[in-house]
């Protein structure tokens, strides 16, 4: 087949979009997530095929031999601009408690894909106010779950959230109600996520291209000064080994986002990896070592004092009962470096493999 004048081979079953992507053609999309079945809602990915009267959605159309495809023409670009102007026109500025979000500007703390719409709006120089009319989508501020903000004022009905929940998570917690302009994302009987089969894995948040679904914990940091930085690591909670980006603002950890190129998870996380990180900066965390006195009460101590005390205890136990009397369980809440160190300590220090990690459970 030919794409924009370039001859290219394709694998059976490949879509035009996938082939174009391999050629680094920047075909715009909003309803597309490479992990999901092709859906064809946003129609931004339309391309022209020689001999066909109308453009086709490249994300749902399979490549065939001899096809001559154009991904950029004046007509296609005009349709894309109209589509973006239409979709921006249905959004309401999100003046929620977090103060974030207008159709054109959405705080990146909301989620990993939250900048897709605003990026395309800028790329296509969307004219504000064009095609003005009724807004669709109604935020569910009544849903007071601690994790997921359901700010549907920003929703554009791409149904990525529904599809990721069905196809990737298998939770089937949310679906689409109503029809047409009144289509809306809901749980059964329009209730709250906590009363549905939602597991709060956050997948819907992270695929949402508008920030309509947002990470409530991350949004606590909206007003913190500083740039957002992402640091790639692996979730320590279990043996799956999901790749994550730790998002920091200044010296504060503010969010976890899944890595879409993580080999074990392809952007998936569970509720623990996604949301259970408050302990890292928790006020009640110990900042000085404590040692227990003869009266059984713990008192602050210096590091030397504490480490000597611990070393004595280990030595005594090993001397009296043998090296196998010492057994270490590393915590899933500690980073990998700590887990590595503790297994080294047991294996090299005591010569046993009496070591485990709570994440193995």
């Amino acid at each position, binding site marked *: 087949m030919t794409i924009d004048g370039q001859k290219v081979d394709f694998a059976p079953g490949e879509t035009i979009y996938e082939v174009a992507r391999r050629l680094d053609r920047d075909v715009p999309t*909003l309803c597309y997530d490479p992990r999901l079945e*092709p*859906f*064809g*809602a*946003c*129609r*931004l990915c*339309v391309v022209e095929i020689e001999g066909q009267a*109308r*453009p086709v*959605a490249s994300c*749902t159309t*399979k490549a065939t031999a001899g096809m001559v495809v154009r991904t950029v023409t004046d*007509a296609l670009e*005009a*349709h894309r601009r*109209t*589509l973006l102007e*239409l*979709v921006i*026109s*249905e959004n309401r500025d999100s003046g929620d408690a977090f103060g974030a979000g207008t159709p054109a500007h959405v705080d990146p703390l909301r989620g990993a894909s939250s900048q897709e719409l605003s990026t395309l709006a800028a790329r296509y120089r969307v004219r504000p106010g*064009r*095609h*003005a*009319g*009724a807004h*669709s989508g109604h935020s569910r501020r009544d849903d007071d779950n601690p994790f997921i903000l359901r700010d549907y004022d920003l929703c*554009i*009905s791409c149904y990525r959230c529904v599809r990721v929940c*069905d196809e990737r998570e298998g939770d*089937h*917690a*949310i*679906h*689409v*109600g*109503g*029809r*047409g*302009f*009144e*289509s809306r994302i*809901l*749980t*059964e*009987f*329009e209730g709250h996520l906590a009363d*549905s*089969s939602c597991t709060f894995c956050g997948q819907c948040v992270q695929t949402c291209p508008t920030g309509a679904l947002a990470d409530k914990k991350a949004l606590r940091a909206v007003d913190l000064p500083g740039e957002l930085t992402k640091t790639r690591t692996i979730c320590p909670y279990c043996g799956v080994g999901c790749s994550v980006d730790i998002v920091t603002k200044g010296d504060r950890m503010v969010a976890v986002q899944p890595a879409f190129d993580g080999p074990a998870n392809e952007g998936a996380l569970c509720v623990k990896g996604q949301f259970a990180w408050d302990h890292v900066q928790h006020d009640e965390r110990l900042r000085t070592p404590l040692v227990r006195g003869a009266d059984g009460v713990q008192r602050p101590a210096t590091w030397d004092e504490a480490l000597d005390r611990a070393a004595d205890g280990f030595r005594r136990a090993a001397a009296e009962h043998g090296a196998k009397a010492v057994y270490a369980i590393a915590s899933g809440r500690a980073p990998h470096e700590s887990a590595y160190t503790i297994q080294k300590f047991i294996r090299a220090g005591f010569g046993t493999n009496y070591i485990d990690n709570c994440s193995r459970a």
Partner: protein
Amino acid sequence: MAAPPATDRPSDAELVARWAGEPAPLLPLLHAFHERDGVLTDDAIRRVAAALRIPLAELYGTVTFYHFFEREQPGRARPRVCDGPVCRRRGSAELLAALGHHGAEPMPCAGRCDEPIPVLVGDQQLVGARDGELRDLPTPLPPKLSDDRLPGWRECVFRHIRTEGRAALAGYRATGGYAALFRAIAMAPAEIVDVIAQSGLAGRGGAGFPTGVKWRLVAEAEGGPKSIVCNADEGEPGCFKDRALMDHDPHAVLEGMAIAGRATGAARGIIYLRYEYPHTLRVLEKAIREAERDGLLGERILGSEFSFRIHVRRGAGAYICGEETSLLESLEGRRPWPRNKPPYPVTHGFEGLPTVVNNVETLASVPPILLEGADWYRGLGLGDHAGTKVVSVSGDVQRPGNYEVPIGLPLRTLLQDCAGGALPGRRIVAVTQAGLSGGFLAGADLDVTLDEPALRAKGSFLGAAGLIVFDDSRDMVAVAADGIEFFAHESCGKCFPCRIGTTRLTERLTGSDGPLDLDEWRSEVEDICATMKATSACGLGLAAPLIVESLLRSFPDDVRAHVEGPAIET
């Protein structure tokens, strides 16, 4: 409507047991609970979800897609009054007000534009007058034209429909019924397909795809069991032909389906009937029972190897379910968003298996074609055009009704000689095509023949052939606004251009939103129409802009007055 006494009330378990093992069980099971309780309760939805293993959120969402599943009192007893483009001009607002104390609500065109105003109360199909009087009247028969008005045209599907008793099996057989099925059973399947292909019969439901080609693709497709689906959703405003066919000649549809089954190797037939036709449901169910009793449907028909069973499934109020892939999704119990095509139903239809989807009229044409031959049918058309088309004519004419005319007939001949022309003292200014989907023709464009090439050259299409006529007393901006509002109401919401575009166009045509400057107004409207026509995912969004474009083309002064006029309409 009072709930039936508790003792007659089937239990949940009985309802589930009745339907859970049947093909396409979701809609009938939901209807069974809906009919028993008058509304669909949370408990019923939970019960159905568990029985059919559908996630609860999905089933709840799907239930809210359809217009007629009631969740609140008065439930199914709530009168529904047709608010379609014809009935709006025949007093539907007054009728709605008159029935207001019963909780009446509007419904989109309910397919009786020749004798308005249809009203649905529970399973009663009634006709209402402006003042609120409701009557139970039979579906009008197609008007009989005297021979001098029919210069040598012959009918195909209507040729026996006016015969007394034709709807019953005895009457049908007395006029040659089921002779075509006997013949089909004696023929090789490929021969049947050849006859249909040579006849030039093409789909009468809207898209006009050659029926013989469709059947051949299904006959040759790998895999099975195969199905014949009769599309009886007839949701297009201004179309009421399938209703007349089914009510007065139901066996013709059943026979056409059985022949399609024989030709393609399908043993299962499903009729997808729109919710608004409960009387038709009873007619079809009775006809199926009669045919089964006489061995004309069921196992080993007439002692042959050929078996064919027909099931009726009732829709729940959604125009998009007439789109064939949306219809299949609806049958399969999912949210009825149209599927991405290809693949097409001929290979990936009902339950992903080869399926013929044909319109009622297409299928009813099959028995006469098989009896009289392909050449006979071809010869019914004018010029190069093959066959006939039933056209539903309504609105501002003397004799609205269903007329079966030769394809290629001049529009003006139909309006004048069949429908009797304009009302006294009036002049016809515009005629819609394909119900509302083809937009309207006006002025010199009314000099056109009724065939796809001629109508497409004018930016329209014949489609299912519903013609709504408007005379010089009508506000054409309001007509176009009603049209696009219908499409906005019926857009399934899957794709952006249609979901948002139909709403924006409605706002601009009703004047509730949009620019006040004419050039800006036109620029927005034209952009939206162009993008919808180029990028929509299915026929609804592709066709919806035509009515707006026809307004811009034919009535530019009315548009100017609408945009720049002193007051915004309310």
